[in-house]
């Protein structure tokens, strides 16, 4: 039954929108706004991991790049929310375009670790050498201009804005995945060498995918800055890379809806379980074991077969 949902993008979008509206109004809008932004992060990450088959251990770098790109523009240049968002996306994509030239030449363990190493470098740069602009350990407190009802200090507006952003990203990725390029990604994941013998320059497409992923993750970072009205080093913390990997695994890698389900599931556990169990991370560890051994396809991977 659920597999039908994936065939119709409109249905996918409607399902996501309705779920988050119900979820938002039955709990708390600011909390669910965090959920939504995290889902965008997972989608961007999963384009590389689930769709192209390369696990990055350092995508917090692009989240941070987007967050600081947006935040620093608003703080130092001009506090227009939309321009700041755009700068955040461009910084994420631009950084991916520069680093991707080298990163994409590696694969598997080297790919994962090289990304982590770059993430560490980025986190250090932001914390110390660039602290005059980034605010160092204190980060930056942000203020954004408002235009009539477009007011980012209004939590309801932020919720709807982020939900619209998520729907936009989902629509974009769904289109990408159903296109010839989507099939190409799938084939690169399975056997990159073979794809070259169909006449495709696989390096170029891996590079492009890396940039798209950087842009989406950068977008989620910029939204985080906008939503929290501050940005600090925790948005680039290398230790937080596990979160997105875990979310992608939990939801089911290689599916846009899987990423959304995984992102929501992860945020639910980390937000709500923490109030009942102090060391909630242990539960995450046990859950990861269960997923690794029995539910390789994740929650959505199983639900779609129902």
């Amino acid at each position: 039954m659920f597999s039908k949902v994936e065939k119709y993008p409109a249905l996918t979008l409607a399902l996501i929108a309705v779920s988050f509206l119900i979820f938002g109004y039955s709990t708390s809008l600011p909390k669910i706004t965090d959920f939504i932004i995290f889902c965008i992060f997972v989608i961007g990450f999963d384009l590389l991991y689930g769709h192209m088959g390369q696990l990055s251990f350092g995508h917090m770098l692009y989240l941070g790049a987007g967050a600081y790109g947006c935040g620093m523009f608003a703080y130092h240049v001009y506090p227009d929310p939309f321009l700041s968002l755009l700068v955040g996306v461009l910084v994420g994509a631009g950084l991916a375009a520069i680093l991707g030239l080298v990163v994409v030449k590696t694969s598997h363990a080297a790919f994962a670790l090289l990304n982590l190493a770059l993430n560490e470098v980025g986190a250090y740069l932001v914390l110390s050498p660039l602290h005059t602009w980034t605010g160092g350990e204190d980060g930056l407190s942000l203020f954004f201009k408002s235009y009539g009802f477009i007011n980012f200090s209004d939590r309801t507006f932020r919720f709807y804005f982020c939900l619209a952003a998520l729907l936009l990203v989902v629509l974009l990725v769904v289109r990408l995945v159903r296109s010839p390029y989507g099939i190409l990604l799938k084939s690169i994941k399975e056997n990159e060498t073979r794809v070259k013998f169909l006449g495709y320059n696989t390096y170029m497409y891996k590079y492009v995918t890396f940039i798209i992923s950087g842009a989406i993750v950068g977008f989620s970072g910029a939204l985080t800055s906008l939503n929290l009205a501050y940005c600090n080093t925790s948005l680039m913390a290398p230790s937080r890379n596990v979160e997105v990997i875990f979310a992608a695994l939990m939801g089911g890698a290689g599916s846009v809806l899987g990423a959304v389900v995984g992102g929501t599931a992860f945020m639910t556990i980390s937000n709500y379980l923490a109030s009942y169990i102090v060391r909630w991370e242990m539960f995450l560890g046990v859950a990861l074991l269960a997923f690794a051994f029995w539910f390789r396809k994740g929650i959505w991977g199983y639900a779609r077969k129902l």
Partner: protein
Amino acid sequence: MGEPILATSGVTKRFDGLVAVDDITYEVAEGETAGIIGPNGAGKSTFFNLLTGYFKPSQGQVYFRGRDVTVLPSYQRVMLGIARTFQLVSVFDSMTVMENMMLARVRQGPDYDSKLRFFFKNVHYKGLERECGEALETLGIAGKADTLTADMGYGEKRELEIAIALSLNPKILLLDEPFAGLSLVDIAHISEVIKKIKGKFTIVIIEHKISKLMDLVESLCVINEGALVCNGNPQEVICDAKVKACYWGKEDMVCY
């Protein structure tokens, strides 16, 4: 026959001291169907890998229609018209048969040139599906279009791989042991297919049993221990003393 379409001059491939291909100078004439035979481990597949750009030769050159393609990456050689299949069938198990075909076909069509369409157009549109369906039809596997490739038999996968290679608009088709691991029925079928497409473009077939090639090829080349032993008319080649020496005691040779 005509001008050579693909030629090598003194190509050598070494792997850490092992000489897999040793100074082979070879050419295939445009339009002919050529065979390459030799015992297992003779270096036939490695030679193919040099022709298609899977490996770069340690020494020597590869020419396509007179152009030096020695350092050209494999994906560019494909676009020149050099298509190949693999000894161990290599198709994408995680995709359907139709998706496998589409991936190959799209690269040749107008949708590849328009990046907007390549990235955003839904791949399941009528024109492409029909085109791919026809390609599957020629190999007799059109009924399997929506099957997951992993669920197909080995012989069917081989047919799919040939259909994919054919849809790359090849000028020259390199088949690496197309009969290996197949049942007699499948061998007969693949053999029929090759006879059907023979003459439309150049074909080179690797095989280690001579008997399967005799009624398919116009020229035969024997490789042993990495070196070219003999090349020419099939009937003459199999009578050659050097060829007999390297195939000595093989049942196939006694037959002829």
